[in-house]
């Protein structure tokens, strides 16, 4: 009976497991294998030459290869941290605003917020590159009206990455607001009624009811926001080309430059493996943190 059950479960799982194996696990394993090889992306895999850890030594070394990779890794980390740190609180704030039943126009606001997520990145990039224009951009013109001097935005290594983060926040916050609203609707209204009877004010209700019960939603939002941020590519490719002085050179854009433009498949794969490992470490740390909180 047990063997029959196992056999039928295996048969039913086989198609999904095979697809995952072929289209997800196999490319991942191939990337890991290529990271230990010297290989041009324009040649067959058979021409790859095993070089051990040389690619990893290069990407963490002191030559331009290592400097550029480490710079891109740091830029990606800053971009991700800033994006998540801004998007999550904003999404909860907007979620709370939209979720209020006694305020009119909530559906319209929800639609407006979500609509930014549906705009193609090419259109967003074109419009925002003009909004940020140092000489004729509306942002600087608006700042001028309130007496603030023009900002360099994308033209300065100090502000270019932050400008790209703001663009990302504008586009993504609507999606995460919808997630936050979904989480808020799961919280029973009776909890708030009981808290009100016990004399808890709005701030206390938010701190002791809303936030703890939104934790699972926020964990999911954080993981998705991190993955989205790590994969940032289009605004960099379309607007800044990684500049100025490499200040917006994020890992996905850099891997594309190394692996495809320069055809250095081994080096590009080593960088992709490091990106994957970093992402796994961050997401696991996040889950471990949330589990500890749950235990407490």
């Amino acid at each position, binding site marked *: 009976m047990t063997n029959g059950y196992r056999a039928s479960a295996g048969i039913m799982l086989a198609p999904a497991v095979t697809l995952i194996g072929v289209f997800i696990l196999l490319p991942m394993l191939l990337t890991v294998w290529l990271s230990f090889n010297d290989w041009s992306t324009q040649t067959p895999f058979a021409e790859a030459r095993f070089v051990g850890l040389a690619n990893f030594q290069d990407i963490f070394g002191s*030559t331009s290869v290592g400097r550029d990779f480490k710079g891109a890794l740091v830029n990606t980390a800053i971009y991700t941290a800033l994006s998540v740190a801004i998007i999550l609180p904003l999404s909860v704030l907007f979620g709370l605003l939209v979720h209020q039943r006694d305020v009119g126009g909530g559906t319209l606001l929800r639609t407006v917020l979500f609509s930014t997520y549906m705009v193609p990145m090419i259109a967003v990039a074109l419009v925002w590159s003009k909004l940020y224009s140092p*000489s004729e951009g509306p942002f600087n013109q608006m700042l001028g009206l309130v007496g603030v001097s023009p900002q360099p935005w994308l033209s300065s290594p100090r502000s270019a990455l932050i400008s790209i983060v703001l663009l990302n926040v504008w586009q993504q916050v609507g999606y995460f607001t919808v997630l936050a609203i979904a989480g808020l609707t799961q919280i029973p209204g009776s909890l708030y009624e009981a808290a009100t009877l016990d004399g808890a004010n709005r701030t206390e209700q938010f701190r002791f009811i809303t936030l703890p019960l939104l934790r699972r939603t926020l964990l999911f939002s954080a993981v998705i926001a991190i993955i989205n941020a790590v994969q940032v590519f289009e605004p960099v490719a379309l607007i800044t*080309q990684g500049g100025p*002085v490499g200040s917006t050179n994020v890992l996905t854009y850099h891997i594309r430059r190394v692996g*495809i433009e320069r055809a250095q498949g081994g080096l590009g794969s080593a960088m992709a493996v490091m990106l994957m490992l970093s992402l796994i470490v961050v997401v696991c740390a996040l889950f471990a943190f949330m589990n500890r909180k749950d235990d407490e």
Partner: protein
Amino acid sequence: MSLAWTSKLALAVGLALLPGSAWAEAVNISYLTHWSPETVALLENAAKEYSKTHPDVTITVRAVPFGDLLTTLRSQSGGSDGATIGGIYDLWLPELARDKLVAPAPEAVAAEVKGAWPAGVVSAASVGGALYGIPNEIDVYALNYNKDLFKQAGIEAAPKTWDEFREAAKKLTKKDAGQQGFGMINSWAAGVVHPFASLLVSNAGELVTDGKPVLDSKQAGETFEFYEGLIKDGSSDPAMATADANTTGPFLDNFVSGKTGMIIMANWWESALKTGMGDKFANIATAPIPVGPSGDKPHSISYSWMTVVNAKAGEAEQKAAWDFLAWLNGAKSGQNGASAMSDILMSMGILPSRSSDIEAHKDKLGTEFLAGYVSVLSDAKPFPVVPGGQEFSESLQQTLEALQYGQISAKEAQAKAQADAISILERAAK
């Protein structure tokens, strides 16, 4: 006639007709470029003209931004479905040929090119003695300046030396009005490196000699210091000179709107200037690159473009592609003895490289803007075409941008540029 003989006869007739049938078979070829929609329309017109006499050949043109051209070529040329023809920058050729992505030209095409183009241009389209592409455009750098701004600043003539250049840049700078004397482009490798290289060769220096980087020379040191001086003077504001993926952006906006006094740029941006400036384009003049303290006369960097054929395309496609390219670049396809390609190039202000095209377009090449470029062509030095050249350019771009933004000194920039260049070119040569 018996059945056996009838069959044999039919087979013989069939075999005899086979090559003809294959030749008459419809062939689809595609052409990948980075040109603007207006220029793509001109190329499509030329393709239609060709198809009138070659109805079996259909040519489609596809354009991508310059920043994506190499990636598209590399990612799509690995298979027969990639573009049959690609317009490429000569710096990319050694690695595309090494990776067998581009096909060597047939003997007849190679012979025609060797006879009709200057030897230097032919060599930039060749690897190991084999010709891989039909050259079309040649670009050189010169000083572009705004005559109105010069007049307002009381400058009578274009600077001829670096001292005069630095002085003019100071006079042209008006920070309160958001005006800079000299525009140093950033965020675009060629836009950063080529003007620097033009100043370097006008100071008797070189980027690479015999495949080895020579950025540790006295001349290169002086060029780095010259850049540092312009930044320290406040005559160049890097925040006003950013480029985007389409090689436009604030650096172009600021020059066309009269916020930048001088810039070192190539002839091909004539069309961008005309579009952005309209009638005010007449304010723009061209002059040779100012000469550095160690230099003897103005020089410029030159580079060329060519069309190559996908080595993975089918035999019939490759044959049709070379035939189309030979026609497009031949002396009979354009107006008044010019090639159709040169007519397209001249619409953008780009200098054609075929000798007969230069002769055919003599009048247009004599306009005030282009004549300044034509005059420096004979003393131009080709940008070094070596394996790893693109990576070398991008690395030097990073170093120069760090210098522009005051992150490193001229001495540090020189040491870093040389060390990086050695490591990049050595690795690429393996």
